[in-house]
């Protein structure tokens, strides 16, 4: 039955006249102050290289998204959910992306409670102080970029004073990122020195104790003329499992505190940004525990500029600097130790054509220290106001198996999608 879902959804979308959906929307808005939008999408992707135990299809799914928002005068309710028929994981599932209430108890205070997507920081597809959940699997298999951000179950309070703004986020139970565990993308196992796949997926020890496994994030921000300044604090856990339980060999989420700051401003006719953060790996302060990732200093600097009309270029430099490197090297127990510095450059090129209906983009990560790269080419075309077709790739290149992008080399994939939205 589920194999019929994708063609069924496409048929449904074709049969539904535009006028009917427009009327439905107007009725909801006029009678219930409810804003409604939706899309139906089919997306298929293939691995270009089949020399390991993963499925041929990198992605094969049909997705229906419903997005509702109701204005209650004193508050706004949001509900956004996806319904997915997934042929790779052979399941149908609902993904609740937003279920939240927003209100202002005081003139200068906004509160949003519930499931929500939270984003801050200045990096472009690089995150230092944005320690909210990500979905790296979605990113690498070619889902829409929207799905890189995973929702958090959080209470967000924003306070707006004359001098500064303060955002406080409390996550009662840890929301980790969806990490690469072998199910759909194979990974480097540094204990065994081999590539792991869906026959030996990684297991993690969940952090799910209410109160004990909570996360807290804060941002203090201020704009001075055109300059945006922000200070950040995060207290919680590594968002991907950067530790190993030495008795069970399960992955664990060690405690982490991050202190950071960022500046973003117009410079030289473009936009420049600098962001830095100190990652304090609190369960391994001395850096001598081989089972827990060391503390790190992270830094990024970026610049975006219009190269020509409808053609934009952006460049970033990013650094991960492992602290207590001597301790790390002395105590290292795996197969291949990481470098003290991981340097990474990114380049984004975006070209808009045909009244901005056709977009070509290429996002490239390249690490000279790891000798690896990750390329994200993409072309998308708005056939009409409702139909959009997209094709792209996730290309991993690496000299070594143990580097961040190098480990994914056999997962290079291409994909195409068709979306109907209203």
């Amino acid at each position, binding site marked *: 039955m589920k194999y019929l879902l994708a063609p069924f959804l496409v048929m449904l979308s074709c049969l539904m006249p535009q006028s009917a959906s427009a009327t439905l929307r107007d009725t909801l808005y006029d009678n219930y102050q409810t*804003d409604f*939008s*939706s*899309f139906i999408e089919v997306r298929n992707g293939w691995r270009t290289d089949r020399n390991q135990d993963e499925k041929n299809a990198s992605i094969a799914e049909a997705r229906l998204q419903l997005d509702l928002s109701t*204005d209650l005068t004193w508050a*706004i309710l949001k509900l956004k959910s996806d319904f997915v028929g997934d042929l790779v994981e052979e399941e149908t599932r609902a993904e609740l992306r937003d279920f939240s209430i*927003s209100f202002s108890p005081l003139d200068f205070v*906004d509160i949003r409670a519930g499931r*929500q*997507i*939270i*984003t801050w920081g200045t990096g472009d597809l690089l995150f230092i102080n944005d320690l909210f959940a990500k979905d790296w699997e979605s990113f690498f298999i070619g889902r829409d*970029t*929207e799905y*890189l*951000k995973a929702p958090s179950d959080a209470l967000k309070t*924003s306070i*707006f004073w004359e001098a500064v*703004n303060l955002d406080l986020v409390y996550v009662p139970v840890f929301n980790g990122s969806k990490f690469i565990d072998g199910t759909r993308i194979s990974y480097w196992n540094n204990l065994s020195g081999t590539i792991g796949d869906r026959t030996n997926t990684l297991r993690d020890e969940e952090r799910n104790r209410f109160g004990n496994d909570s996360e807290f994030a804060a941002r203090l*921000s201020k*704009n001075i003329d*055109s300059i*945006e300044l922000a200070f950040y604090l995060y207290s919680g856990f590594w968002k991907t499992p950067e530790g190993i339980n030495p008795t069970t060999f399960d992955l664990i989420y060690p405690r982490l505190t991050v202190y950071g700051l960022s500046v*973003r401003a*117009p410079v030289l*006719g*473009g*936009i420049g*940004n600098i962001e830095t953060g100190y990652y304090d790996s609190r369960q391994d302060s001395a850096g001598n525990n081989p089972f827990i990732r060391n503390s790190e200093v992270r830094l990024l600097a970026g610049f*975006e*500029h*219009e190269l020509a*009309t*409808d053609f*934009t270029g952006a460049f970033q430099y990013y650094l991960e600097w492992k602290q207590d490197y001597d301790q790390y090297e002395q105590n290292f127990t795996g197969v291949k130790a990481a470098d003290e510095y991981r340097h990474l450059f990114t380049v984004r090129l975006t070209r*808009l054509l*045909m*009244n*901005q*209906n056709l977009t070509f983009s290429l996002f490239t990560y390249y690490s000279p220290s790891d000798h690896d790269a990750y390329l994200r080419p993409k072309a998308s075309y*708005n056939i*009409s*106001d*409702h139909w*959009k077709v997209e094709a792209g790739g996730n290309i991993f290149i690496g000299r070594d198996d143990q580097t961040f992008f190098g480990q994914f080399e056999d997962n290079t994939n291409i994909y195409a999608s068709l*979306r109907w*939205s*209203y």
Partner: protein
Amino acid sequence: MNNRPVLLLLVFITLFITPVTVHSTPEVKEIINKANNAAYYAGDDGKAQVTMTITDSQGRQRTREFNILRRDSADGGEQQFYVYFKRPSDVRNMVFMVHKHIDRDDDRWLYLPALSLVKRIAASDNRTSFVGSHFYYEDVSGRPPLADTHELIEENDTYYVIKNTPRAPDSVEFSSYTVWVNKSNFMPMRAEYSNKTGQKYRLVEALEVKTIQGFPTVVKSRVADLLDGGETISEFSNITYNIGLDEDIFTERYLHRPPREARQ
């Protein structure tokens, strides 16, 4: 020495010249400033619902529907814009915000609701298409009068016709443009752009003007690409001026939480 003849002469000159000055053409700079105020600074603030119909050279049509809020810090001075997209659905609920400056590049932000992301956009080139239409960013928020030199080339019963030449020709795609300014209300009604080879290639025109709360207002306008035949028609409705928009609306807070004025 008797100064009387000189005094009489002065009085005579004054009497004779003053009425002439009153009836003469205002300085071209003054016309341009008045036209700029009429087109972009009506009231202290305002809102409108905008529907753009974009027709490309092949005759394919796309629509854009958005609400726009505007607030002036001072007439002819800094302004803030808040554009809330309603259609098509792939841009639904996105927000585009501009802080327009006079002495430096504008600040622009784009809010992408699906990612909850506030993106800063470089504003170096104001002469790029606004949301894929034939309107440029500059047509929406106004070109600073100081960016061009102005010359009154014709005056008839209805219009002042002014030729504008860019002070920095390399920064724009045109060599000059000619504007027809309505003499009665100073509304610019038509602008024709010539490219570097002297060919007329772009036409911006007001198709319908209504008086709303005492302010002459363009409620329908059109940009035509005279070379490839494409055009965009903008229709403005639900226009209200002087609604008392708070400056705070044009900050990051309201990107995450669009104000009711923008959503309605």
